[in-house]
């Protein structure tokens, strides 16, 4: 333990099955109020599809060869992956860590801090899976899914959720207080929500913005993959999108756990 304080931010943490016990705790809290929790992802996409998809869509030319409503539908699924996992591992994790002192209670047992954080990240990914699958169900009910490949979207949601959870946890590890989550929310999440090929094709953007969004915005890759699977339009570029996520996820997972260790174990 003496060496812990000086470990590098990229050293691989040791995680055992015990991380799932932390995940299970979060799941049990979620299930206590499941009716409230299932409500938003069920209702919100309906408004987007009706208002933006059919309403605004009447004025908008097809995007990437798709009717406007069919273009934004898969994006709504990808956006819910991002929102649910990112906010779970920022605000909700911070409340558990700082206000409820839940992490402190758990690390007094044989569970290590690394495992607590890993459990939180797994739970953030699970929230992404749950919420985006509900949104996918709504989109499906509107007849906007046209390929059996859509069955691969829930596993993708878990992976994308893991990535956003890890990024969120990095902010949680360095935020001085809960209000400061405004910075990542409005400087990182909101631009991504708008600029990731979600509500209009990113080809409409100026070249440099396009390049930046392809290199730096994880939601861009999640949207491309989700859209490809929902309408069965596979192209080699999807491999690049998947590779981006597969490389970034372990990097941010390891970084977030080490940053949290640095914050909580001094």
């Amino acid at each position, binding site marked *: 333990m003496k060496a812990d304080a000086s470990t590098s931010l990229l050293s691989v943490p040791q995680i055992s099955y015990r991380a799932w016990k932390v995940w299970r705790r979060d799941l049990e809290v979620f299930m206590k109020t499941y009716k409230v929790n299932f409500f938003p992802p069920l209702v919100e996409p309906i408004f987007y599809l009706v208002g933006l998809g059919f309403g605004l869509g009447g004025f908008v030319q097809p995007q990437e060869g798709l009717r406007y409503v069919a273009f934004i539908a898969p994006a709504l699924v990808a956006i819910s992956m991002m929102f649910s996992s990112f906010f779970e591992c920022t605000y909700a994790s911070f409340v558990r860590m700082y206000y409820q002192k839940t992490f402190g209670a758990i690390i007094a047992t*044989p569970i290590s801090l690394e495992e607590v954080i890993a459990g939180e990240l797994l739970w953030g990914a699970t929230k992404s899976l749950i919420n985006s699958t509900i949104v996918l169900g709504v989109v499906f009910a509107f007849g906007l899914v046209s390929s059996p490949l859509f069955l691969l979207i829930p596993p993708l949601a878990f992976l994308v959720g893991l990535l956003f959870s890890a990024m969120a946890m990095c902010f949680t590890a360095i935020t001085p207080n809960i209000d400061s989550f405004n910075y990542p929310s409005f400087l990182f999440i909101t631009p991504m929500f708008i600029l990731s090929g979600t509500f209009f094709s990113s080809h409409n953007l100026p070249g440099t913005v396009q390049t930046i969004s392809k290199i730096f915005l994880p939601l861009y890759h999640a949207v491309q993959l989700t859209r490809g699977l929902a309408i069965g339009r596979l192209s080699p570029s999807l491999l690049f999108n998947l590779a981006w996520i597969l490389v970034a996820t372990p990097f941010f997972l390891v970084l977030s756990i080490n940053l949290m260790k640095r914050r909580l174990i001094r």
Partner: protein
Amino acid sequence: MSSEILIKAEGLTKKFDDFLAVDKIDFQVFKGECFGFLGPNGAGKTTTMRMVQCVLPLSDGNLWVSEMDVSREGREIKKMIGVAPQEDNLDPDFTVLHNLVVYARYFDIPKKEATRRGEELLRFVQLDEKKEVIIDELSSGMKRRLILARALINEPRILILDEPTTGLDPQARHLIWDKIRNLKKEGVTIVLTTHYMEEAAQLCDRTVIMDLGKIIEEGKPLELIKQHVGEEVLEVAYDEEVLKFLQGTFPDARLEVSGDRIQVFTNQTRGVFSQILNKYSFKSAMIRDTNLEDVFLKLTGRRLKE
């Protein structure tokens, strides 16, 4: 109490950036005893506890629990320790019993056994009627009792109690003290921190007094009292002439003026003060037994610590 050493610290040190919270302390806790860390706020008691619990890495020195090194075998040590922290970190989303069952799961205790132990512990801390109540509806005394029950869910050999009764009313405090005594009888080794001197005198076999990260005194409560402040103390209202008279009468005594009171401490046997009071009368004079608080104030001073 046996001679088997359960916790042993050598040169234990904890540094936070430039702040030395625990400064090269040595201590030993024997199996079956109740060992107390006394000290003002900020003395380093909780930091020491957190190192024993294996949640805070040491900056220097060595610390063994049951002959295991805390730096290497934290997981094994945590299995045999029960911790009741100072702050309320119960799970507000769960009921009383569910808090215990979820906590038991962290120790790999199967659900059926966890429920059995949980219900038994709730009877032990007299919360069985509150089993299905949500945490928010408990009083602070009930929360402390639940935290104590939670600390016992893994049937620990060592129980760490960080200020177990701070902020409680007398009834709740005495109930907790009773439970701690019961546990000690059952052979649980207890380490507690407190700044209530009465608590230490009531519960602890041995204590150390900490101040500014160092252990400044160690011993049995009664011996510490006798050694540092004698058996009795005479208190009278402050008056310059009375002070001079007392200095003349008790040349070896330690006279302390605090506020509008003079306190006279002496190593002489019981009765010297009553002889004086039989002869002279002072304004609002009283003789009382010395206590650990007198020792504490003598050793750590009267200044505020924070």
